């Protein structure tokens, strides 16, 4: 099924829901459930919080279906609601990393650590990213969105998504101990600006 065919099917389900057809909205969510869940899971790093965010978003979408403007794909609209639900939670600082980041960068990188430990550290480092950067890198690097599709979800220009991704990766490089100044004395200092670029 092509993207266009998939979106047509989504729109049909949305229209059916608005017309009062039982199960139509559940069917619509079911078509995207795993990817919506993946975005929330990667963004929040906590299965419980992710499940709550998806539920919040599902309810918002259910109640706000009539307000869908149709100027984006239905799946984009659904992902946008999930991302916003996740960012709301992240901004409220209600979500803490499951495992705190080490206070110092890991000088020798994470190669020596086992796969599980690496995953924990990476997830914790993700949780420390500014929310907008985290959303961008989750969509593009961890969920397989193109920069353009992520831009549609986040309602920002593609250049902003790209900037946020590179800034997020740079911060991850510092957090995970991959980045030090050439003389090895100090890591490259992170910038004071916590936001993403606008280019």
């Amino acid at each position: 099924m092509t993207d266009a065919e998939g979106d047509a099917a989504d729109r049909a389900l949305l229209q059916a829901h608005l017309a009062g057809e039982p199960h139509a909205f559940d069917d619509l969510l079911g078509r995207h459930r795993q990817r919506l869940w993946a975005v929330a899971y990667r963004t929040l790093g906590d299965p419980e919080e992710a499940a709550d965010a998806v539920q919040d978003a599902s309810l918002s979408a259910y109640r706000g279906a009539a307000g869908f403007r149709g100027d984006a794909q239905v799946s984009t609209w659904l992902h946008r609601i999930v991302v916003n639900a996740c960012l709301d939670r992240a901004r409220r600082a209600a979500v803490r990393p499951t495992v705190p980041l080490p206070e110092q960068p890991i000088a020798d990188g994470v190669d020596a650590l086992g796969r599980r430990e690496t995953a924990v550290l990476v997830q914790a480092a993700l949780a420390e990213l500014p929310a907008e950067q985290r959303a961008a890198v989750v969509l593009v690097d961890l969920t397989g969105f193109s920069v353009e599709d992520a831009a549609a979800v986040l309602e920002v220009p593609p250049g902003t998504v790209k900037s946020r991704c590179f800034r997020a990766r740079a911060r991850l490089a510092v957090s995970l101990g991959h980045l030090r100044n050439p003389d090895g004395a100090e890591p490259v200092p992170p910038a004071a600006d916590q936001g993403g670029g606008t280019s």
Partner: protein
Amino acid sequence: MTSTHSHADLDALADALAAASDGDPVPEDLLACATCGPQLDALRNALTAVADDLASLPPVPPAPAVPSLEPSLEPSLEPPKPSVSSTTVVPLDGRRRRWLLPAGGLAAAAALVVGGGLLLTHGSTDSGSASRAAASPSSLAISHSGTSYTKASLAAAVPQLLKGAPRQAAGLAGPKAPPSDEALATLATTKGLAACLAGLTGPGDESVPLAVDYATFDGQPALVVVLPSSRPSKLDVFVVGATCDQTEQDVLYYLHADRPTG
């Protein structure tokens, strides 16, 4: 981005690499910076390692089962009935409330005032299985604050809600003053409030509401209801509209909030 070469920060370096990935030239100020070239090279190499780390994350587990949002009859989705002695709420997936569950099979709720307390009786087609949630006078704060809540402000307001919102906090003999907005008049009656709370808690849910506040949400007349969650560290906060009753809760917003400590 800083214009001082020697102080090019991490974001500036990242932006330069982002531009370079599009084939754009590295900004001249970075090219002229003596330390920036090596820093860019180091960052470029580090990003490769980051990509490897991100790729090493284990796969996302399957999405958890979620309750139907549709008000349809799905017998297989009915929550298990707690035993008479049980005090644990067992909603659909172990922690979801009745308002996300199929509404079929419910009959009218009865609300009684007993000894100054609000007794919520969940009617059922099987009267013998009716369950109830009785709120003691000391446990439910009823307020008419008129607060203009929003999604952004609600979580921060939870601690105050539990203490009883500013203008009036009452015990449990029912709302003592009409809400400022007439739209909430039905919910301001003991019977109306009880029906709404019974709808939110659902049959078999014996948890006791902690607080309600007659207010607005995003400019719309709304009742904020705080309920204990099945997770001790959490609270279920419902924002319902004026038509909330046992069969249709008119949920405007739901928040799974952290329970305040201390």
